């Protein structure tokens, strides 16, 4: 029994001794750090500056491999040129693209981050340009476009995002239709349901009017537009829930091909999706951050001065 106890004590002492003498943490050496920086095309100071910015120190890493994994490929003029070549962009074009999002190349540490940014911003720009072109094509001007976005911006982002997802799914099957083919009954129903859904959710009230060559107007609805062949010009007016005018579009009979019908629906979903992702871009006016307090204090001082003036004027009369 005594032997057992003394063995246990010895074991415990050994464990404790090892625990205290084993170094808790290893860190890359200065030489390793310099070599790594050199390999990346940075100076040791650059690396230090990056770590400082991230709130880290060399000692936080157990070895140089872990530190290396944390880093990307630093942006150097040669690497930047190579990246620009890949994207067929000039430096000026890159600067313009980033400036559109209040950024510049110096905001990025690594080529990989910059690449993600270029992809992200280019995709958004392209989607925006496509929508702009489409809206122009159907006669919606800048002010009207803004009105549509304002209307979409009133919606709950989460709800809108779910809807966009649902609509995109519905359109997937309509995408491959070419200009010669006709929509079958099911596809027509899908489109009619979509528009009903879209206008209900966005609280946009559409008014459809057919105008024939003699200028004679006849009001119509989406379902009848889908069921009858259209030979006249179609005027679409959009209003909000309080009957305020949002915008109007003109669609001529020759524009009304099947792909156009599908594209229109698709572009309106894109607009809703844009409003969800890019609403901030279109609601460009920054919040008004002036409080009334400075104005109030000025008024206060002004009132005091006028008050003093009245008192003073009274005294000067008294002297006379």
């Amino acid at each position: 029994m005594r032997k057992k106890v003394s063995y246990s004590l010895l074991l415990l002492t050994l464990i404790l001794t090892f625990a205290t003498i084993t170094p808790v943490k290893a860190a890359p050496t200065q030489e390793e750090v310099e070599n790594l920086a050199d390999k990346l095309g940075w100076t040791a100071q650059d690396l230090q500056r990056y770590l400082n910015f991230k709130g880290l120190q060399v000692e936080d890493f157990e070895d140089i491999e872990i530190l290396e994994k944390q880093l990307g490929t630093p942006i150097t003029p040669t690497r930047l040129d190579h990246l620009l070549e890949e994207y067929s962009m000039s430096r000026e074009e890159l600067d313009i693209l980033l400036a559109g999002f209040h950024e510049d190349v110096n905001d990025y540490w690594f080529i990989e981050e910059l690449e993600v940014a270029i992809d992200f911003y280019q995709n958004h720009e392209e989607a925006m340009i496509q929508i702009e072109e489409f809206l122009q094509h159907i006669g919606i001007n800048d002010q009207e476009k803004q009105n549509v976005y304002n209307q979409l911006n009133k919606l709950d982002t989460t709800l809108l995002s779910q809807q966009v997802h649902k609509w995109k799914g519905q359109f997937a099957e309509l995408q491959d239709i070419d200009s010669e083919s006709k929509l079958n009954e099911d596809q027509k129903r899908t489109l009619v349901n979509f528009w009903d859904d879209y206008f209900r959710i966005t609280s946009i009230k559409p008014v459809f009017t057919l105008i024939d060559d003699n200028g004679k107007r006849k009001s119509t609805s989406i379902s009848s537009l889908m069921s009858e062949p259209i030979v006249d010009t179609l005027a679409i007016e959009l209003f909000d829930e309080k009957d305020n005018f949002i915008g109007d579009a003109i669609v001529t009979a020759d524009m009304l091909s099947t792909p156009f019908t599908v594209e229109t629906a698709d572009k309106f979903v894109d607009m809703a999706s844009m409003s969800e992702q890019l609403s901030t871009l279109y609601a460009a006016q920054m919040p008004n951050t002036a409080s009334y307090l400075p104005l109030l204090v000025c008024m206060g001082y002004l009132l005091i001065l006028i008050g003093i003036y009245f008192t003073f004027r009274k005294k000067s009369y008294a002297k006379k």
Partner: protein
Amino acid sequence: MLKSKTKQKIFGSLLIILGLGFVITVYLSYEKVQSEIKRPVSYQSVSISKPVPSFQKGDKIGTMFLPRTKEYIPIYEGTESDILADGAGHYEKSSIPGLGNHVILSGHRDTYFKGLKELKKNDLIFLETNNGNFEYKIKKFSIVSSKDSTILTPKSRPILTLTTCYPFSFIGNAPKRYIVTAELITSKSTSSLYLSN
């Protein structure tokens, strides 16, 4: 009947009292804000629950802590003037901290965001919310037109943008905006905790 001299005297005194009233009201409002933002608020317990995906206008989202000025600024959903009178406003169409890339907060330059002009590059900003705690580091400051459309854009990586009016000493609607851009350094969000659990 009172003499016109006396009438003028009373009128003058009333104006002085009213003016003093205005000045004192403003002084008290400043004092209230200052005492509020200097009082530490803690969101230490990050509860492992489903993250809050959206807020109603006027809901409290969390607190922004600025270590340089030692200010704890309450953050509310929305940027309407009545909301900005109570703290910083989260721009509704921007991301909720922890659930998207670009978080935009606005505040009054003479009350809650008065301390923005004291901040320096590389200063830390902490957002403590029910969705988690987020540490940002200031990357740049810019002064832009109030109509600048490049500020409120989406971002390719997690960014916090603070906006307030500029010049700081301007009376009325200032023509410029003071922009602080900060990059996310670390985050401990309930969304990641939630997903990993």
